[in-house]
């Protein structure tokens, strides 16, 4: 069994390597990618069914580091079993879907290999019982996300989005690294158990708080909490399976898992949890609002991911110590299924239509029955409609938060609870809006004109951001460029290709999981715990939100978001200038870098150069002074003797 845990991590990594080596033969690459994913699912099932409850599985052996113990152990328990299974399932469906989606892409093999590696990174985070290993998996995911988002490297927007994604998360990872170091220094060990068992001493433990807050910041980067949230919508420049992978079960959600693992420490540290609560609350509401205004289906889903991940983190921030991290992980699982479903569905739709802009997709789902149903299940689950998995997991999270709030969690928990309910309503609203748009076939002439108007505005906004970017880009420094993903960008993949059976099956599998996935969670203690009151209230909010969206859209005849003020909406589409703010930071750093280069050349290096010049000048002067005049030589002799005599007599002793 121990080998199962190791293999779960090792196999995808090897598959990634093999995929790279098999670059020239796509068939082999496909086989390796899908095959390994299947095997990993099988292994994960084994772990799920029979978790070992151990955290002492050797991976590559302990690092010999003197007084720091770094055993690099892996673990296996119920929690890791569930998450590993979910991850592997999602990865499998994505691999299968990708075979179809990127069938004409010359870089398919690299893509599939990267997905495998990505999965390995996530599974390493899941199975890791060591902070160092967690960091490894964490960063590997970041790197793979760069590769995946930038897959279409011919396009400027893709290159930029990848750059932005990696940089933003990397900046947050500064805190992550510092946090992990702070935690392991406390325990003199990077081992998770050691770190957890060094309980805070009486009173406050500054080092612990610092470490935990730093980890929160690191998580905020990858999970896209405000203010790091803006990379994720841009990351939609990657192919849709990549988006599904990043959003559904891996990178974005990994933060939840990491904090869940460290939950025993967080439970004792109010300060760190308050930070988390505030960040999560702000993010879930704010991004849900932004999601409502989006004009692009993928960006809408991206913002919804931000919102949903914030729900998980909110649950972690608010849940009482005895409830633990399970509700958050539970929502992680639910979200993984329905979000993967939604992304693959969106990808399917986009492949058929050749666009992801909502305008272009309008009503396109209506005449494709299977796809329509899949999208309906996904959106409903996202909105939290029972009995889909989204309802259960979200309400488990809400219930945990409410319990925390009523159980002495104080302001921190109440903030989360309020935000959760608001988000519930907003989620329902944007889901309804999206569904209405996808499902309402014939826009009225009036709405067309308004849509045109609207899209003009958006274009306008986009152009504005663009021009800002190009000016920053002109100087050859690709740090600052930014362009908001243009609405209605045409994907370069799979135009009007008939979907293959396997690909559609993968979508259906996800739909099935969305429908019945709750059953999986029953095995995890406390994973499904729906409070009657909270469920009722949240259902009311769902209904209200859905109704509001429906009424705003004039019964689906027009886009609900058009009712927003045009200006506001244009700004919302471009994320209220978050990108510009990032760019400002970037250009600030670039300016600093230029300063450094100037200093390097004109200050630091000035001394050696000045020395050289001085030496040369002195030599020149000396050559000029030195003439073969005997008298001057005599003068030198006499002066020298006088000086030497004076020095000799006075300074002798």
């Amino acid at each position: 069994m121990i080998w199962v845990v190791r293999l779960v991590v090792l196999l995808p990594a090897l598959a990634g390597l093999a995929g790279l080596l098999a670059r020239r033969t796509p068939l082999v690459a496909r086989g390796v990618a899908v095959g390994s994913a299947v095997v990993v699912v099988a292994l994960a099932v084994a772990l799920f069914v029979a978790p070992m409850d151990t955290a002492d599985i050797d991976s590559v052996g302990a690092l010999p580091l003197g007084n720091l113990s770094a055993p690099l152990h892996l673990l296996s328990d119920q929690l890791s079993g569930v998450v590993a299974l979910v991850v592997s399932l999602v990865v499998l469906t994505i691999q299968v879907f990708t075979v179809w989606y990127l069938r004409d892409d010359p870089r398919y093999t690299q893509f599939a290999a990267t997905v495998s590696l990505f999965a390995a990174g996530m599974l390493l985070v899941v199975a890791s019982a060591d902070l160092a290993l967690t960091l490894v998996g964490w960063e590997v995911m970041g790197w793979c996300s760069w590769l995946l988002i930038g897959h279409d490297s011919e396009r400027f927007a893709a290159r930029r989005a990848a750059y932005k994604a990696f940089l933003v998360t990397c900046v947050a990872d500064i805190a992550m690294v510092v946090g992990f170091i702070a935690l392991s220094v406390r325990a003199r060990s990077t081992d998770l158990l050691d770190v957890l068992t060094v309980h805070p001493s009486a009173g406050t433990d500054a080092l612990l708080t610092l470490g935990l807050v730093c980890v929160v910041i690191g998580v905020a980067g990858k999970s896209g909490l405000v203010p790091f949230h803006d990379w994720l919508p841009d990351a939609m420049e990657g192919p849709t399976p990549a988006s599904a992978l990043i959003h559904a079960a891996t990178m974005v959600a990994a933060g939840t898992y990491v904090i869940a693992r460290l939950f025993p420490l967080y439970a004792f540290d109010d300060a760190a949890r308050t930070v988390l609560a505030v960040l999560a609350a702000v993010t879930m509401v704010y991004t849900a609002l932004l999601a409502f205004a989006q004009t692009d289906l993928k960006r809408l889903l991206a913002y919804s991911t931000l919102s949903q991940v914030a729900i998980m983190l909110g649950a972690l921030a608010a849940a009482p110590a005895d409830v633990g991290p399970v509700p958050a992980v539970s929502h992680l699982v639910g979200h993984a299924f329905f979000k993967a479903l939604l992304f693959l569905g969106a990808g399917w739709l986009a492949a058929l239509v050749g666009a992801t802009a909502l305008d272009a997709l309008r009503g396109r789902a209506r005449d494709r029955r299977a796809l329509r149903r899949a999208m309906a299940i996904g959106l409903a689950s996202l909105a939290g409609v029972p009995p889909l998995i989204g309802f259960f997991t979200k309400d488990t999270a809400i219930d945990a938060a409410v319990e925390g709030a009523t159980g002495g969690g104080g302001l921190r928990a109440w903030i989360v609870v309020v935000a959760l309910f608001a988000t519930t309503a907003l989620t329902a609203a944007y889901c309804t809006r999206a569904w209405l748009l996808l499902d309402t076939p014939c826009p009225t002439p009036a709405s067309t004109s308004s849509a045109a108007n609207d899209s003009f505005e958006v274009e306008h906004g986009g152009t504005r951001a663009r021009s800002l970017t190009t000016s920053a880009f002109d100087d050859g420094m690709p740090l600052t460029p930014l362009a908001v993903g243009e609405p209605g960008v045409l994907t370069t993949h799979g135009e009007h290709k008939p979907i293959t059976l396997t690909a559609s099956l993968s979508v259906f599998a996800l739909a099935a999981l969305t429908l019945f996935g709750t059953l999986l969670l029953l095995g995890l203690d406390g994973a499904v715990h729906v409070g009657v009151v909270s469920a009722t209230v949240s259902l009311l909010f769902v209904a209200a939100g859905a109704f509001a969206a429906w009424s705003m859209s004039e019964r689906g005849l027009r886009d609900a978001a058009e009712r927003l003020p045009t200006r506001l909406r244009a700004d919302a589409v471009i994320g209220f200038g978050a990108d510009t703010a990032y760019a400002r930071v970037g250009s600030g750093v670039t300016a600093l870098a230029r300063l450094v280069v100037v200093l390097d050349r004109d200050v630091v290096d000035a001394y050696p150069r000045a020395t050289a010049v001085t030496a040369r000048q002195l030599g020149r002067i000396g050559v000029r002074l030195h003439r073969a005049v005997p008298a001057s030589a005599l003068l030198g002799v006499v002066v020298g003797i006088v000086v030497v005599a004076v020095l000799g007599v006075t300074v002798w002793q």
Partner: protein
Amino acid sequence: MNGLVIDVAALWPALFPLLGIVAVLVVDLVTPRLRQAPYAVAVVAAGFGAWTSLPGVLQEAGSSRSSFCVGQQGWFSSTSAPPHIAPTCFWQADSLASGLQLAASLAAVVCLLLAWPIARSRADAASGAPAPARSGHTREPVEAVLLLAALAGTVVLAASRDVGTWLVALELATLPVIVLVALAGRRRSIVGAVQLLVTSLVSFALLVLGAALWFAATGSPFLDPEAAGGAAGSPVALDSAGSAALLALSVVFVVAGIGFKLSLVPFHAWTPTAYSGATLSVATFLATVSKIGALAALLVFLRAVAVLGTPGFVAIAVLSALSMTVGNLMALRQNDVVLLLAWSTVAQAGWVVLPLVSVSALGTGASAAYLLTYVVATLVAFAVVALTVRDSGAVGRSLVGYEGLWRRHAWRAGALGLALTSLAGLPPGVIGLVGKIVALRPVVAQGWVWLTVIAAANAVLGVAVYLRWLRPVVTSVAEPAEAAEPVNEAAGSAVVAGRALSSPRVRQVRRGAVVAALVISAAVLLVVSVQPDLLLGVLR
């Protein structure tokens, strides 16, 4: 009977050059038309001198080969001399002195080989016309005699232990060289000789003043620790402090007086002029044997005062720092290799006296060791220059003449590279590096931090200097001309002139002796680079 005990065996290193002088004169008298004969005799004499100094080198530390010993009980009783005179010798060659003698003799051999003339018949054939009857008769024997005389002076200097011998030997080592410089007969050499002359005269006068002060301070004509230790009983000084000051004054006068011979700044001005004016072999002699003589003289004096402990010699430190810096800075601007070597002599002189800031056995030994490394490397460099000049004429004296030497004459370039890296103190010239270590050791031990920092900076400057020469050596000839380093204005004309002077035809001049000189010196350099102990062991 107690009396002046003379051990002739100890004197052979000095006697052989003197005998050589006589032999040269006799040979010249007998066969005036054999141009090479005087040199052959001189080489043999110097060689024997070297050979006979070997036993002195190999003796164990502490002992010395002495001659002209006096002071045995009873000898002075008949005279008015005070009875308390300690037994002493006028000639004491310990291993350090013998090492310097050996080095001087060997260096003289190399110099003689470099000066090796062309056979008369060949010369006539080459010139295509009979040489003027007047010329050629006198120069070779004169040169040989003068070189041997200077060598004899140097050898005696190293072993001398009293003021009289010391002064005479110093003059014997100096005056012939002045004549040798002038002997080249060109305007440049006369200028050099004049400058050398006046500098040496004034310096010598002041040095005599210093010697007189020594006598005044100690009341003893012997340059030995006992005399220095007895300075408190000086006839003129009123108190011990005044006596110490007088002694110090005498020491610095002597240091300054010998500074000219060592080319220390500010007594250095003659160096470039004389080097460039003299023939290459004489310049080599100036750079090597003369320096050994100067240092030997200095060490005789300093070892006498070493008994006073290890006082801080600020004066020497200043001279050393100045010499290094000025020498290197000036060498950095030279495009004429002889001038470059001249200024490098100045810089290296700074390194030579650097360890003397600590007047201890450590310091004197280090100084001598550094000098020897310098001498060996310089000999090789001069030999390469001589060979190159014979091959390619005047252009061999400028840096551009060495472009692509690596490709043309790999071995010669290798020897030059080894010499230059030794001078710069970089491997593969390990001996130069070891020399640097040796020279810095006493300074560090004395805690002269500012001086070590200046030395470090000068190590860098020195590397820059010698790399300027090494660079054309390793540069490929095929490189475009404009890529060559831009010539500075000061020396540009000289280079242009040098280029114009280089005759297109490669002159087939016999150069066996020069090659032999190069081989000998390079072999020594190589061997001591591999096992520096061979050189340092000389100075146990």
